């Protein structure tokens, strides 16, 4: 079927326009050309389209870029978290290393067989000042053995089972340790107290104590070896009955911060070592 004249005319005009534009764009040396005119006429439209194209491109690019950043951010956050955990673990290991080094120094200083134990629990009721350690009778740990750390004495074993034992701290009111004031050599009984950390009782009234005086074990109670640090004198006051003087003592060992302790596997009455436990020395 033949097309109408209008259709043919339109086809011819547009085709010619195309060809003219094509040829005019090849020869750039020409000044004002038809192509130039077309370009000028379409410039606003072209600019608008370009503007939207650019914006769309930016949005797409930034969107995909953000997706990547999000993923990267997640990975980096994970990495930071992992590294932080690693730092904390390393710091913990460093601190543990330092503590164990101190404990090793103490072990080498002591003339008695010792055993390092970890604190695994605190008193369940809260009314007694005791802790649980991870060594028991199978390791040669028995009641009445002294427990200490490099900073000072901690307490004594009160109960012992196969793989764990209970330590009564020197701050528990049931604990009594025979002690001396290092400087004056005066003897007293160091007991735990709910009101104060520890109290050095039954000191002679004539005693000339000073704040900061070191209190050491006398070795006469049959549990703690002689000369171990118990704490330092904090304050001095007359006892309730007025016959003696008593002093508040701050324990050398930071009782609430302990993590590892040294158990002295023996008492002055003789080592209570079970056969086969020599390897623990």
């Amino acid at each position, binding site marked *: 079927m033949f097309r109408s004249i209008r259709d043919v005319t339109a086809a011819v005009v547009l085709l010619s326009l195309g060809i003219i534009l094509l040829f005019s764009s090849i020869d750039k040396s020409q000044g004002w050309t038809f192509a130039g005119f077309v370009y000028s006429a379409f410039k606003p439209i072209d600019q608008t389209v370009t503007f939207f194209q650019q914006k769309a491109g930016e949005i797409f690019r930034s969107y995909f870029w953000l997706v990547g950043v999000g993923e990267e951010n997640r990975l980096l956050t994970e990495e930071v978290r992992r590294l932080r955990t690693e730092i904390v673990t390393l710091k913990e290991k460093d601190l543990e290393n330092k503590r164990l080094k101190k404990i090793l120094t103490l072990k080498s200083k002591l003339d008695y067989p010792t055993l390092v134990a970890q604190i695994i629990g605190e008193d*369940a*009721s809260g009314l007694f000042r*005791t802790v*649980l350690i991870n060594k028991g009778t199978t390791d040669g740990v028995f009641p009445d053995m002294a427990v200490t750390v490099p900073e000072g004495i901690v307490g004594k074993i*009160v109960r012992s089972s196969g793989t764990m034992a209970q330590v009564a701290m020197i701050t*528990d009111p049931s604990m009594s340790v025979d002690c001396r004031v290092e400087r004056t050599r005066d003897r007293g009984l160091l007991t735990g107290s*709910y*009101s104060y950390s520890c109290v050095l009782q039954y000191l002679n009234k004539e005693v000339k104590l000073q704040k900061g005086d070191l209190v050491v074990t006398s070795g006469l109670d049959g549990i703690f070896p002689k000369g171990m640090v118990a704490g330092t004198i904090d304050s001095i006051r007359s006892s309730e009955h007025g016959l003696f003087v008593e002093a508040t003592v701050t324990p050398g060992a930071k009782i609430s911060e302990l993590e590892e302790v040294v158990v002295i596997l023996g008492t002055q009455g003789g080592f209570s070592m079970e056969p086969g436990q020599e390897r623990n020395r």
Partner: protein
Amino acid sequence: MKDIPFFLLTGLGCLVIQCAILNHIFPMELKPDLTLLVVVWTGLNGEYVSGLLSAFLLGLTQDLLSGAPLGLFSAVYVATVIFTGYVSDNFHVEGLGTSFAITLLVSLVSFCVVFTSRWFAGHVTLEPEIVKIILVKTILTSLSLIMLKPMLDKAWKGYSRIVGAT
């Protein structure tokens, strides 16, 4: 007897929370005795003999995990169930307020018994600090009931539906 595992499990759960978590929140002596709360709840809601048996076992565990002489908490907890069982049989105990009042009384008496036993043993002298510990611990323990009781009630409902315990 089907209720014993529930009482024991909740009691042990509370003991673990008491040992592992509350230590970090409250000072050592003042932390609430959650196990005592379970025992009180058991006495008020559970079957009498099961309550007594659970209280004894929980007390024994508490004795082993604390510096208490073996049998101290067992006896205190059993006495608690005897008292709360009596109250439950003779009075209408339903609301939180009544449970709170009973817990307050039981906690006060229990802690006094613990300290009195230590005083008899010559371990402690009666000092103001002890009165403070008893009072604050009693209040904190009783206040903990407000949180714990609804949880125990809900858990008990679920448990009895599954196991058929009453």
